[in-house]
């Protein structure tokens, strides 16, 4: 191919604008982080988790945690573990097979300690088993 110097310059310019535009677009419209993308900060049973957040709940704000606990109530809004952790479920999770009293393991994002109801709130929760 015989390209003049000028044409070459235009071509390089166009390509770099395209690459730049594409990466800008990628950066601006990057997908939301899912539960699996975020680093797991706690894994264990509910009682241990509760004592840990009593010491310092700020550490776990916005962190992903995996908790084993006992289901103490189920409603349309989500489930309660050990009467102290409210898990708002991911939209894809069905609660139809869960029973009160069952031991389960869930993974979700802690959004904070709700001092109106005195419970810890998780959202985007999925059931591990």
């Amino acid at each position: 191919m015989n390209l003049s110097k000028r044409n070459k310059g235009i071509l390089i310019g166009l390509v770099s604008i395209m690459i730049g535009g594409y990466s800008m677009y990628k950066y601006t419209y990057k997908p939301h982080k899912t539960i699996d993308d975020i680093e797991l900060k706690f894994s264990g049973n509910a009682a241990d988790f509760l004592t840990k957040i009593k010491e310092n709940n700020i550490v776990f704000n916005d962190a992903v945690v995996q908790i084993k606990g006992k289901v103490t109530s189920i409603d349309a809004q989500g489930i309660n573990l050990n009467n102290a952790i409210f898990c708002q479920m991911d939209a894809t999770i069905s609660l139809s097979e869960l029973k009160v009293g069952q031991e389960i393991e869930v993974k979700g994002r802690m959004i904070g300690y709700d001092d109106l109801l005195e419970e810890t709130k998780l959202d985007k929760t999925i059931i591990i088993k």
Partner: protein
Amino acid sequence: MGNRWLFRKLKIPETFKKCSRTQNKLTMVSKKIILSFLLISFCTSIQAQKYFTKTGITNFKASVAAFEPVAATSNSTTVIVNTVDGRFAALLFMKSFHFKVALMEEHFNENYMDSDKFPKGTFKGSIVGFNFSDLSEMEKEYTIKGMLNIRGIDKEVESIAKIKRVNSTISLTTNFSVTPQDFDIKIPNIVRKKISERINITLEYELIEKK
């Protein structure tokens, strides 16, 4: 002999006295028990008069036409309404706001709201003239007055809410607007044109009885 008899005669009323005293004590104790039972049942009956949700929907919009919409929804707002006196409390976590654009969510939390430093937004107030028995399936308008606290700054807010009750659910919808300056949120010049001056907040809460 006679002496002993006299002694006995004297002693009988003594024991009588003791008896009646313990009886008195007993009735006092039982009275106290009954009273405390009454008090407890009274208190629990007051406590039962609360309606709440853990998954209330709070929206905000600060969009300007022709630019990328600046709007987010949180569907994990906690709301408690005391149906006896109309007191109203709400709490939401800033990080539960979900934006369509992930980068916007990141900027919202990091640059504008300082969500790590001020994770919560709260509202404490009351529904003026609230009377539980007046609620029906027809929507009624009430004024809600109270303090909105965002980023640790209080701002008095007043809005008209539509409240209705269908079976055991109270639904409450309202909207009001605030400005970023109210809460000392600085918006850089570059994006000033893309964010509207007033931020409209819409609330949709479906409350159920707290047992």
